[in-house]
């Protein structure tokens, strides 16, 4: 893994920027513009995520399913007038087809943007930044941080529950019918342990003079840098390029995929 400039963007700026882009994408109904944007976002993702291609490829695998699952019903059952195929309930029209592709692509862009964010942002720094730049209350931020700390612990806990069941002799039956009882044997203790642990940690935090409203200093100072400017410029560039090219060099003669 190598840290690209994307890692150095202020996490709050990154998050807000991406959410604004997200909202903007919701207003794009022109498939040409969206396709352009997808290509640029995709390029950005591959250039700057900083992870080895092998790992990234593995993470991208579910994206195909996402695309299929979002687009398929619209393609097969969406409203439209120019019929391509009609077969029983299935009615594929030109309009529904492009609308389906549009929403599938849209889901893809969101997925790429999301993954780009998670791959290039450390949760600890995100929450420190949200406290410092977005005035997130420390009691929320530290709850989230403590919560994330518990993820690996929950995994350990899962192993421990497994060990305890082994040590205490829960029979190892196989078959589908044992799934509910197994689910219960793992789920309930896992949840109740996590709640107890969370409660105790909360108690310990308060005992360590954590106060929700008091002032505090920060071990990690998250500031701004020139990278933030690059990032904002990049986002604006994205929109500009995709709109311009979408309008002047469309791939398809469609302006709006919605049913008129």
């Amino acid at each position: 893994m190598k840290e690209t400039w994307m890692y150095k963007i202020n996490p709050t700026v990154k998050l807000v920027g991406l959410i604004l882009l997200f909202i903007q994408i919701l207003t794009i109904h022109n498939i040409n513009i969206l396709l352009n944007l997808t290509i640029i976002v995709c390029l950005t993702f591959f250039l700057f995520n900083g992870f080895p291609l092998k790992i990234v490829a593995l993470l991208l695998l579910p994206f195909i399913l996402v695309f299929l699952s979002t687009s398929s019903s619209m393609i097969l059952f969406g409203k439209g007038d120019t019929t391509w195929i009609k077969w029983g309930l299935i009615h594929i029209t030109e309009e529904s087809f492009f609308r389906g592709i549009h929403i599938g692509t849209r889901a893809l862009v969101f997925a790429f943007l999301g993954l780009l964010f998670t791959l290039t942002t450390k949760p600890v720094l995100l929450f420190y930044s949200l406290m410092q730049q977005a005035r997130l209350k420390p009691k929320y931020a530290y709850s989230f941080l403590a919560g994330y700390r518990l993820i690996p612990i929950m995994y350990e806990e899962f192993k421990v529950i497994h060990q305890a069941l082994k040590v205490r002799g829960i029979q190892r039956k196989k078959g589908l019918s044992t799934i509910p009882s197994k689910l219960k044997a793992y789920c309930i203790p896992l949840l109740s342990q996590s709640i107890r642990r969370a409660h105790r940690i909360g108690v310990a935090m308060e005992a360590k003079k954590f106060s929700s409203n008091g002032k505090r200093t920060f071990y990690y100072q998250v500031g701004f840098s020139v990278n933030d400017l690059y990032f904002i410029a990049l986002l604006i560039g994205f929109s500009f390029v995709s709109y311009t090219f979408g309008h002047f060099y469309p791939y398809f003669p469609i302006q709006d995929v919605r049913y008129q």
Partner: protein
Amino acid sequence: MDPFMKVENLRLKFPKEKDLLFKDLNVSINKGEKVLLLGPSGCGKSTLLQVLAGIIPRSIEVPMKADQLVLPDSSGYVFQDPDSQFCMPYVDEEIAFVLENLQTPRDQMKQKISHYLGKVGLQLSDLHTNIQTLSGGQKQRLAIASILALEPEVLFLDEPTAMLDPEGTIEVWNTIEGLMDQQTLVIVEHKIEHVMRLVDRVIVFNQSGEIIADGDKDEIIKSYLPILRMNGIWYPGVWDEYMSEHPRVTLEEKISDQPLMSLRDFEVVRKKESVVKVPVVDVYSHEWIAIVGENGAGKSTLLQGIMQLLETKGEYHLSGKKVTKKRELFHELAYVFQNPEFQFVTNSVEDELAHSLKVFHTEEHLIAEKVEEMLTRFSLEDHREKHPYQLSMGQKRRLSVASSIMQNQRILLLDEPTFGQDSKNTFALLEFLEQERQIGTTILMITHDEQIVEQFATRRWIISKGELSRDETVGKMNQFGLLHV
């Protein structure tokens, strides 16, 4: 003058319990006093400490009331359970969290973090170490370090050294002694050998949460010895007394030549790395093997390997048969986790005890009988309907031991089964184990208590830095003992 810390007529009751835990309890502590709370397990020491620190009812809601309640402005609390008092993932971040709360300027943090870690003797090559990879003892040191960072007016310590090796224990008490001139200190501790020199006042509770003695420490030790003894509380010289009353039994039975367990080039693997190595050992029936070694040496890891909870390499035979992944060991080996909470799989003390018998389809009335016997033996009869998590630390420990040895397995693997116990329960447990041993059970027990090793064990394994470095007999064995090993 206003008192520094005072509770007057404290009444406290856990929800859904029949009885009050405290009924009109009065305690007052002056600034700079160093107080030790003594009492049998389950009498309410931890609960009182939490009331004094303001944790109950501010953070934990428990119905209580008091005519007067004067509490210190700032207090530090070291919890009994090392595992769940951290809120950040890394060692440095954990102490930084406290420093942040105190608004320490950022540029001083790094230096302060190393300072406090140094004070408790937690040497780490990298401050940014994941807390999860520390051993129980190392975690407790970190907990103390982060409390020291609070620089509190009053320090509340709830058995802070229960999990530490002897060296670590001395070190921690020395540390606390070194910083305390003016410091007010309230300590709960069962094992009093080291802590006695730190305190000047002792408050003694009985089983029902009443104060039965309160005064200067020498006074208490001099005049209240019978009371301490009667309530099953540790006091200086307990062991000498015990040993003179119970001379060590020597082993009469002949040990069979066939080893019960044998390990050859045995290695326990954690995340693909070998953590403990055992070149050659054979274990026979009637043996009581004490496993000792410093915190983080790999004792627990070794037991987990033997129980096949972790991956292992090398040869491992039980009763002459090779141990494979498929083989279910819980028929043959009983296992007690270092953290008692890991053990619990049901919702009440009774069910917990009955659980493993039910797995074996034991008849109902036999189960009931056995459960009853264990409840009494381990002083849990008043708590049968509680959820295991609602027990006091000592009670949890006893329950975890009791529930895992219900089915008379031939080998017991016990990870520090006596920590956090009062003397009555410690001896009850040890005597029970001794009985079992005499009828042929083998005991492998991790402990930091040298006295238990001397008085009860027949053999000692010293684990150091991930290796079984010594294997020696202890106690007065007759010629049939372990001489053929």
